[in-house]
């Protein structure tokens, strides 16, 4: 009994506090450039862990994550933009929207909810597809979102994008959401809902026979993942202080999938480590890219890395597992397959 209280309360509390301490130390010691790198690490953790909920736990292979980010990002940006300057930047905005000027947190929540709502609308028809057809349809969704953003100029300024956003994102906000997404996903994974999701992933028919409502679980996984994607989009927009239609591209979808696959579909720890590692690697390679004019080297390395993992370790580094120290003596024992064989 004692050991379990230890696991359930003190270990998470200790982790969260040491994370907060790390944030404090980082903010006190690093310059803006290095801090922004850690902000990106955090945002990518939010994205990878939430995508893992959809792709990893439930096995819904979605490439639409950046599409949800874009929805959240644009809405958050419009909501937080100073009302005075909004009239100049977006003169065609409806009056009620132009008058709004929200603080970051409610705007992020609104962005997340809008992304969830989009997921709900898109999910109902599209989630009837399976496997790689779902992947292709979500990719189509992503491209449609981009086209809409380019064309809805009165809300988005089209290809120009929105720039000069207030820089509201800082490492505390990012950390708050990192903790939130990890907490939610961890709770889900170690609950009956999480097991239901894994069951849907491993064998749809068996899950259905046991009374699982497949459509409900799928929609839930997609909308929950989309919520965090929307929030991450908002954080991203207020970190970079500019968003354009090309900010949220298929390359980004690919990079996120790489994180989930390399970390191990279904493993939260894996997604966190892969997101951190790959983001830092990208930042290390960026000067190389710019100074040696080797543009594209980063993507080449990512692609080769992914191919190597797919060939030599298809279940990713962690499979579906978490380190036994964290997961309460490894209660979830999955065979680590990364999706039902069709």
């Amino acid at each position: 009994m004692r050991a379990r209280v230890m696991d359930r309360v003190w270990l998470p509390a200790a982790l969260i506090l040491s994370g907060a301490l790390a944030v404090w130390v980082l903010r006190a010691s690093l310059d803006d450039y290095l801090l922004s790198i850690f902000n990106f690490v955090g945002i990518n953790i939010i994205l990878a862990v939430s995508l893992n909920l959809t792709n990893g736990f439930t096995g819904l292979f979605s490439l639409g994550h950046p599409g949800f980010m874009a929805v959240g990002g644009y809405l958050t940006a419009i909501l937080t933009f100073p009302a005075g300057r909004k009239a100049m930047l977006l003169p065609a905005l409806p009056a009620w929207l132009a008058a709004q000027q929200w603080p970051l947190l409610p705007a992020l929540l609104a962005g997340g909810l809008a992304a969830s709502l989009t997921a709900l609308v898109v999910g109902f028809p599209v989630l009837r597809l399976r496997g790689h057809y779902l992947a292709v349809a979500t990719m189509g969704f992503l491209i449609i979102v981009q086209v809409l953003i380019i064309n809805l100029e009165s809300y988005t300024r089209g290809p120009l994008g929105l720039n000069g956003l207030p820089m509201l994102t800082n490492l505390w906000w990012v950390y708050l959401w990192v903790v939130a997404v990890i907490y939610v996903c961890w709770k889900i994974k170690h609950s009956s809902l999480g097991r239901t999701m894994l069951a849907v992933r491993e064998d749809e028919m068996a899950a259905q026979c046991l009374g699982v409502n497949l459509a409900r679980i799928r929609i839930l996984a997609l909308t929950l993942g989309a919520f965090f994607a929307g929030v991450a989009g908002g954080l991203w927009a207020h970190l970079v202080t500019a968003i354009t239609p090309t900010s949220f591209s298929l390359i980004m979808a690919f990079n996120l999938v790489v994180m989930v696959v390399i970390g191990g579909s279904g493993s939260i720890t894996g997604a966190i480590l892969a997101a951190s590692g790959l983001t830092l690697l990208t930042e290390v390679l960026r000067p190389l890219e710019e100074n040696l004019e080797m543009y594209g080297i980063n993507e080449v390395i990512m692609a080769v890395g992914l191919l190597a993992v797919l060939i030599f370790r298809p279940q990713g580094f962690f499979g579906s597992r978490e380190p036994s120290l964290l997961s309460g003596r490894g209660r979830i024992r999955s065979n680590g397959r990364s999706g039902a064989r069709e």
Partner: protein
Amino acid sequence: MSAYVLEQVFNGLILGSMYALVAIGFSMIYGIVRLINFAHGDIVMVGAFVTLALIAVPGLPFPLIALLVMAAGLILGVLIERAAFRPMRGAPQVTGFIASLAVSILMQNLGVLILTAQPRNFMLPEYLQTIFHLGPLTVRAIDLAILIASVVLMAVLVLMVKRTRLGIAMRATAENIDAARLMGININRVIMFAFAIGSSLAGMAGLMWGGKFGQIDPLLGFVPGLKAFVAAVIGGVGSIPGAMLGGYLLGLAEVLFVGLLPPIYSAYRDAFVFGTLILILLILPNGLLGRSVEERA
């Protein structure tokens, strides 16, 4: 029909020919290994650049260039299959799909790394640029060449698939890979040939793409690749006649969508194409000519 509409239809057929050539490869590969190969579009890009390089060689006749480009596509396709897809055969379908995205991104960025992202002008020999009049139509020789060459290539392909031993083995493998193996068909060889044929057609489409649009860059293959995939889905993935039909339909639909509707809609061109894709997947998952026992929706 006014000359304008006729011209649009003609352009639609040219675009459709290129989509069809690429879509055939998608369909053949999918039909046999159940792999959506997103790297297929980038073979179009490589085909375009190989053409550019060969045109720079003095004294090389254009038909020979075309053959060499097809050979280059063929070799590349076989190499990709060996290096990336064969090691993960038997893995879940999505794994192959992710791998093909990785190969696609690898090829695009190797292209950027080696050739830079700067678009290059694609110079055709003089005689392919001559302009002549066909009734109300004004056409360039290359446009006609594209139309005729693609029809000839497709006819050869259909004959091959229908008549030769290899074609029969391919159809048998597409029908049921295990039964085909039991009948003594060398599956690896069949898969290799599917990649080889599909990729050589894609290489040829690259030559045509450059000739039609006059500018090429390392990222040019991605969008036509995606659209050719849409074409394959429209026709029914796995069906070669379906891919041809889908290619022409999509080419025509896209050009007419832009050409005949008011200009404000033309910016929605890609949304229209991918909206169609999602609709077809949902309503008509087997496409127009496909027949399938597997479950997609």
